[in-house]
C-alpha cells in the first residue's frame, strides 16, 4: 500500500494486541453513513504518475517569451534558492509551536521580518500572509481596527485583481469603499484629498502602480495623517532595489506580493503576502510574528510572540483567522534577498528599469504605437496604445511566440487598445528586438 508502513500482518498483530477487531475501528460511525465505495481510479505507480504528469506539463506552453507582468513577474531565480528550501528539515516541518525543535524556521522568519523592514524602511513585519491581495485586505482591516472608522479610499491604479478581492471580502461587512480615478498614471491628489474626512480609516495606493508608473506619496500621507487616517502602500519588492521606500514616504502599513523574490510564476501560487508597519501598531497587526528572547540558560532564542492576538487564543476576537501562512515562501524570499544582497538587488532593479526603458523606446518607435499615460517615470512596466484592439494583437503575438503583455480592457473601461508590457532582467536585448519586429509585423 503506498505510504502505509505497516504490513497486513503487523496490522493484525496490533489489533490483537489491543483486543480489537477490524470492524470495531469504525463501529462508532452509523452503518448508513459508511460509504459503499469510492469511484476513484486505480492507484498509479510512481513511474506511471510521473509519465502522466510529464504529459500534462507538456500541454502547457513555456517557451513563449514572457513580457507579462501585472504584479507577477518572470525574474531570474538563482539555483541556490531551490537547494536551500528543498532541505526537508525546512519543508517537512510544521508551525514552530515547539521552539526548541524549530529554531531553524523561527530564526529564518525573524531574519525575513528584518529583511522586509530594511527593504521598506518600516519597523515591524509579520511572518507572512497568503498573497499581496489578502495582505492588502488584512491591512485595510487593521486600519479599520486602529482608527475605529468605516471608510476606505482606494486608487484605481491599485492592482484591479486586488480591488475585486477586497470587494469580495467586504460584501457582508459594513464598510464604505470609495474609488478614485487614475487617468494620468499618477494618483489624482485633488480627488483623494477631497474624499478624506473624519470617517476615513485608510487610503490605499500602489507603487509602482498597476500601470507601472512611479509616484511619491509623501503628500498623501500628510493629508491622511492630518485627518487621523492611515496610508497603506502596496509595493513591488524588486522595485525597492532603487525606488523611494513607503517608509520614507510616511506610510503606516506596507503590503505587497513577494512572488518576485525567488518564487517561480507558478500559475497562481503559492505566493507570498508581506506586511510591515510601525511599532506603535504592532499589536493590531495580523499574522504570526517571531520575536527574539533568551532561553533558561541565557542563550539567544526565537519564539512566536504576541500570540495573544491570534485565533488559537482570541478566537472570535482575533486580529485575523490566519493560521498556516506561507512560511516556506518567506524563507524563499529571505534566501533570494541574501543571495542577491545589498548590491545585487539594486543592480537587478536598475537592470529591470534599463531594459524596460529600452523596450519602451523600441516599441514606441513603431508607427501607430503610442504611450498611454503622460506620467514620465515608470519602473519595469508601461502602458502602450495600439492602433487596434490590444486583445487581438496579443493573440496574434502568441502565435509568433510572445506573451507580449496584458490587455487592460479586461479590468479598465475605455482602454480597449491599451496593452501593459513588463520587462525584467531576464529579457535580452535580442528578445526585445524580436518583440518589436513581431509587433510591427502584426500591426
Amino acid at each position, binding site marked *: 500500500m503506498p505510504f502505509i*508502513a505497516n504490513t497486513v500482518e503487523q496490522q493484525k498483530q496490533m489489533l490483537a494486541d489491543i483486543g480489537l477487531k477490524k470492524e470495531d475501528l469504525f463501529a462508532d460511525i452509523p452503518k448508513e453513513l459508511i460509504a459503499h465505495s469510492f469511484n476513484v481510479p486505480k492507484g498509479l505507480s510512481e513511474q506511471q504518475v510521473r509519465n502522466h504528469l510529464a504529459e500534462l506539463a507538456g500541454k502547457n506552453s513555456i517557451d513563449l517569451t514572457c513580457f507579462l507582468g501585472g504584479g507577477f513577474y518572470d525574474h531570474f531565480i538563482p539555483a541556490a534558492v531551490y537547494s536551500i528550501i528543498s532541505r526537508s528539515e525546512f519543508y517537512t516541518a510544521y508551525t514552530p509551536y515547539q521552539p526548541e525543535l524549530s529554531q531553524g524556521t523561527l530564526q529564518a522568519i525573524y531574519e525575513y521580518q528584518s529583511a522586509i523592514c530594511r527593504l521598506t524602511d518600516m519597523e515591524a513585519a509579520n511572518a507572512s500572509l497568503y498573497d499581496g491581495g489578502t495582505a492588502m485586505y488584512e491591512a485595510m482591516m487593521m486600519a479599520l481596527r486602529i482608527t475605529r472608522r468605516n471608510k476606505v479610499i482606494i486608487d484605481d491604479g491599485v492592482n484591479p485583481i486586488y480591488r475585486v478581492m477586497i470587494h469580495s471580502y467586504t460584501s457582508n461587512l459594513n464598510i464604505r469603499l470609495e474609488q478614485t480615478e487614475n487617468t494620468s498614471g499618477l494618483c489624482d491628489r485633488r480627488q483623494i484629498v477631497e474624499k478624506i474626512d473624519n470617517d476615513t480609516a485608510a487610503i490605499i495606493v500602489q507603487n509602482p502602480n498597476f500601470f507601472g508608473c512611479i509616484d511619491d506619496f509623501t503628500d498623501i500621507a500628510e493629508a491622511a495623517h492630518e485627518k487621523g487616517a492611515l496610508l497603506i502602500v502596496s509595493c513591488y519588492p524588486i522595485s525597492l532595489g532603487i525606488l523611494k521606500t513607503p517608509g520614507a514616504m510616511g506610510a503606516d502599513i506596507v503590503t505587497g506580493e513577494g512572488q518576485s523574490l525567488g518564487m517561480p510564476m507558478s500559475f497562481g501560487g503559492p505566493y507570498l503576502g508581506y506586511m510591515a508597519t510601525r511599532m506603535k501598531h504592532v499589536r493590531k497587526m495580523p499574522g504570526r510574528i517571531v520575536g527574539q528572547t533568551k532561553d533558561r540558560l541565557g542563550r539567544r532564542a526565537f519564539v512566536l510572540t504576541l500570540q495573544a492576538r491570534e485565533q488559537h487564543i482570541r478566537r472570535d476576537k482575533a486580529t485575523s483567522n490566519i493560521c498556516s501562512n506561507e512560511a516556506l515562501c518567506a524563507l524563499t524570499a529571505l534566501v533570494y534577498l541574501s543571495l542577491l544582497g545589498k548590491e545585487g538587488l539594486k543592480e537587478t532593479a536598475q537592470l529591470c528599469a534599463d531594459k524596460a526603458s529600452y523596450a519602451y523606446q523600441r516599441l514606441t518607435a513603431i508607427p501607430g504605437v503610442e504611450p498611454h499615460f503622460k506620467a514620465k517615470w515608470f519602473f519595469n512596466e508601461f502602458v502602450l496604445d495600439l492602433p487596434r484592439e490590444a486583445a487581438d494583437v496579443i493573440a496574434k503575438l502568441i502565435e509568433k511566440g510572445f506573451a507580449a503583455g496584458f490587455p487592460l480592457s479586461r479590468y479598465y473601461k475605455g482602454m480597449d487598445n491599451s496593452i501593459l508590457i513588463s520587462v525584467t532582467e531576464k529579457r535580452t536585448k535580442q528578445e526585445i528586438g524580436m518583440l518589436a519586429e513581431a509587433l510591427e509585423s502584426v500591426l
Partner: protein
Amino acid sequence: MKLIFEKSVTGRRAVGTSPKDVPTTINIQKKLLRRRPAELPQLSELDIVRHFTELSRRNFGVDTNFYPLGSCTMKYNPKVTERIASYPGFTHLHPLLPQLRMGGMLTQGALQVIYETDLLLREITGMAGFTMQPMAGAHGELTGIMIAAAYHRDKGNKKTTVLIPDSGHGTNPASAAIAGYKVTSIPTDKNGVMDIEILKKSLNDEVAGLMLTCPNTLGLFNPHIKQICDLIHRVDGLAYYDGANLNAIVGKARPGDFGFDIVHLNLHKTFATPHGGGGPGAGPVGVTEKLLDFLPVSVVVKRSDGTYALEYDRPKSIGYIAPFYGNFLVILKAYVYILMLGKQGLERVAENAVLNANYIKEKLKDYYELPFDGICKHECVFSASKQLQENDIHAFDIAKALIDKGFHPPTVYFPTIVKESMMIEPTETESKETLDAFIDAMIEIAETAKKDPAKLKEAPITTPVSRPDETAAAKDLNIACL
C-alpha cells in the same frame, strides 16, 4: 548562532546579476529614488548555504522523526510530488496566460490538473463542486462562511449567528467573526461530543449555520451527526464541515452523506502536501448543488470539445478569494498523491490512521489520564492531570521531555476543554516500531515524573535552546534586527 545580518562583510557578493546588454541607462528623477540601498546581507554563496544548512539542522520535520501533532496530520510527504511540482511545465506558467485571448490553449495541462482535482475531491467528500482558490484551511473556512452569507442574502434571510462547539479550532470562530457573524458556543457533553440538547435550544431563525469537525478535536465521532445537520437545515441554516480531521474518515465515509452543505479540506494535512514550516497550504471548499452558484470565480470547466477553460460568468459568485486559481503547485502535489493512492490506497488511509491512534491510546491509558475512553478516531487526547496532581508535572514538561527522547511532542493545551491536554495523531504513514518507541518513551517519562520530577523540569537538554522565555519575548518586543 549569529543572524545572517551579523555575518555580513562589506563588499562581499553571492550571485552576479544578469548581464546588461541594452544601451540605455535610465536615471529616474532623484526624488522618486531611495537614498540608500536596503541593508541586505553581503555574503558569499557558500556563507549563505552554510548559514541555512546550520539553521536546517536546528529544525525538526516529518523526515526527521515521529511528529504526532494532533489536528495537524503530519503524514509523510512523498518525494515524487516535490519532483513533479518542480517541472518547468508547471512552475514557469504566468497566471494571467489563460486570461488572454487564445491563452487558454497555452495552459491546458495546468487547467486539467485543477479540473481533475476538483472531480476527485467531489468523489472523496460527496460534494457537488469545489473551489480550489483558498490558500489555507482558515482561508477555506472564511470562504465557506462567505458562501453561506451569500446564500442567505440571496434568499432574503436575516441571519446573525453561527454556532460552534467549544472544542472547535480557534480559526472557526475567528472566521465567522471576520465574515460578520456573532458566534454562539455550544458546550461538549459528558461523552465528549457536542451537546445536542443545548444545540436544539440554541436553534432559531437567526442561525446562519453550524461549523463542526467530525470527528471532533477530542478524536470522537458524534453518532448524531446526521440528526445535527437535519436540525440546522430546519431553520434554513447551513452545516459546515471543517475538514481538518478528514484523515479519520477519508476513504470510509463522506461528509456530504452526513448532510453537510459546505466542506473545506486541508491539502497540507489529509492530502500529504508538505507543511513548509507553516505553509504554503491549500484549503479547497466543496459545496452542495444549491450553493454552486455562489462559488468564487474563475471556475475551471471542461467544454464539450474536451478542452478546459476559465468561466467567469457567474452572477451570484462571491467574487475573487485569491488572485487566481489557488496555490496551484500545492493542488498539484495533492493531485499526484490521490492518483498514487488510488481507490485501494484511499480506502486504507483512515483504517490505518485510526488503528495507529487506538493502539497508542490503549497502550498509554494506564499511565496517563484518558478523559474519554472508547474507540477514538485518528487522534486521541490524554490529560497530564494525574502527573500534575501527584508531582506538579505539566503537559508542557512532558512535551519537553519527549524532545530529549528524539520525538516531536504532540499538540499540548488544545483542545482547551481538557485540562493539561495532549493530543496525539500518529497518522497512517508511521510504522509499528515507531509507535512502540514513542509509547516506551511516554511510559518512561511517566515513571520519571514519579521518581525524579525535577529532571523533567530541566528538559530539553539535548537541543540548542531550552525553554525560551516567552513572557520576556512579549514584554520586551524584539521582532526585527534593524
